[in-house]
């Protein structure tokens, strides 16, 4: 073999060597970081068990709020996003334009800015008008508007991924355009978009940390705001670590679920 003459190694030996070098670099990097870190200080700032223990059970209120805000925004996002997706594939140009502008606007604006608009600008512009549901309504709409734009794009892609033959078969049986949409296209499209929608739920879980801008009370605080206020009152960073772990408790299973659904979708 020509390569063997050059290096004196077989292909198999070269693969092994390359792997050993990669492991070596990784181990050296881990050891260097561990050696350079001031573990005592890190433990004192982030790993104070007494501070962590003191957060419980109060932290569950804000944990529950994070879940609730996420779900409220997601439900609003679906309720608005699916019709917007239908408008994007409508045969009526006016619907398509409206939906395109809607998606571009709410996908292009920072979620924080939309929350500000919903929470402060709109009530200021229309005095006397309040959002139903108080802060919960504001969150549903404020976060849901941004989310609905992403959901609409996912669902539109799902609708367009349904094979045209499915529509032809339904129409050939005498189903109207609308009936075909409801009975054949949407159920298949929603199946296709379950994985991206699960990802959207992960993103929303993290975006719920923006709710603090609306000004929240102890009862309506979400995780990040709670962790920050604990940070202030204890002068210790442990609450941030606990808060972070609780986010992962939500997002890691969701991501795993999304991956599983994606695999299942491939098999079908």
């Amino acid at each position, binding site marked *: 073999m020509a390569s063997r003459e050059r290096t004196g190694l077989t292909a198999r030996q070269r693969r092994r060597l390359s792997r050993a070098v990669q492991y070596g670099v990784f181990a050296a990097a881990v050891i260097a970081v561990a050696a350079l870190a001031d573990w005592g200080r890190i433990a004192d700032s982030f790993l104070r068990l007494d501070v962590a223990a003191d957060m419980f059970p109060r932290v569950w209120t804000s944990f529950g709020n994070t879940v609730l805000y996420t779900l409220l925004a997601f439900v609003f996002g679906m309720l608005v996003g699916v019709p917007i997706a239908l408008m994007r594939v409508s045969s009526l140009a006016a619907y398509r334009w409206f939906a395109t502008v809607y998606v571009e606007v709410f996908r292009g604006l920072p979620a924080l800015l939309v929350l500000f608009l919903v929470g402060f600008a709109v009530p200021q512009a229309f005095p006397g008008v309040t959002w139903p549901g108080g802060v919960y309504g504001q969150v549903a709409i404020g976060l849901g508007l941004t989310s609905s734009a992403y959901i609409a794009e996912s669902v539109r892609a799902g609708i367009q991924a349904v094979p045209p033959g499915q529509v032809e078969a339904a129409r050939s049986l*005498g189903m109207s355009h609308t009936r075909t949409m409801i009975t054949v296209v949407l159920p298949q499209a929603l199946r296709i978009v379950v994985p991206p929608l699960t990802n959207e739920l992960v993103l929303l879980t993290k975006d719920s940390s923006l709710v603090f801008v609306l000004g929240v009370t102890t009862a309506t605080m979400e995780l990040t705001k709670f962790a920050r206020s604990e940070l202030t009152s204890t002068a210790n960073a442990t609450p941030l670590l606990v808060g972070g772990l609780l986010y992962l408790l939500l997002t890691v299973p969701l991501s795993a679920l999304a991956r599983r659904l994606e695999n299942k979708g491939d098999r079908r």
Partner: protein
Amino acid sequence: MSDPIVTIRGLHKRFGDNEVLRGIDLDIAEGEVVCLIGPSGSGKSTLLRCVNLLEPPTSGTVNAAGHDMTDPDVDIDAARRDIGMVFQHFNLFSHLSILDNVAIAPRRVLGRSRAEAEAEARRLLTEVGVEGKERARPAQLSGGQQQRVAIARALAMDPDLMLFDEPTSALDPELVGEVLSVMKGLAADGMTMLVVTHEMSFAREVADRVVFLDGGVVVEQGPPSRMLTEPETERAQSFLHRVLHPVD
């Protein structure tokens, strides 16, 4: 003979600069089985799809199952209820069970009760020889089974006319027979059928008439006994020769 169930006059279909159908006149009598044959690109499938308006004709008139299909005011959904269609790639609803595939249109379009529609669906599935698969998804069935379910699905609407668009072209050779035998049974029961096919043996055995299309026009038509042995036109002769002796 009674009035034709399909009447096509001066049918043209153009896709951009490509004129696929260049003036088709065709009548189909009730209970007649007509096979459309011709080289690929001859416009057979387009002609079939113009009958139930999956392709809107560029000009000309189509009457089918008592509906003036080319009238702008036609209730197209009502018309299609009377015209069954079977596709090359089956197009079963992938999210529904086999039973629901057959029962869904009678329920949602005709307003039948679930019990009634499902009972009829089971009967039809038995008729096409797909039993014990009611709960399965289409993807779990063989191509031959899927196509037979697709035939049952079309029959569930109790159509006056059935259109078949190359129903066996996507099947493995050993599965072609089971689909053709269902179609044969259907023909024997008196169903009016317009079939785009490459299965010359089916045409010979089942068709009342064979229509040879080439270049978007009907070149020649007649009984299968003549059309499949000694057609008069040279184009039909050469097509037939190529189909029957592919390696010559």
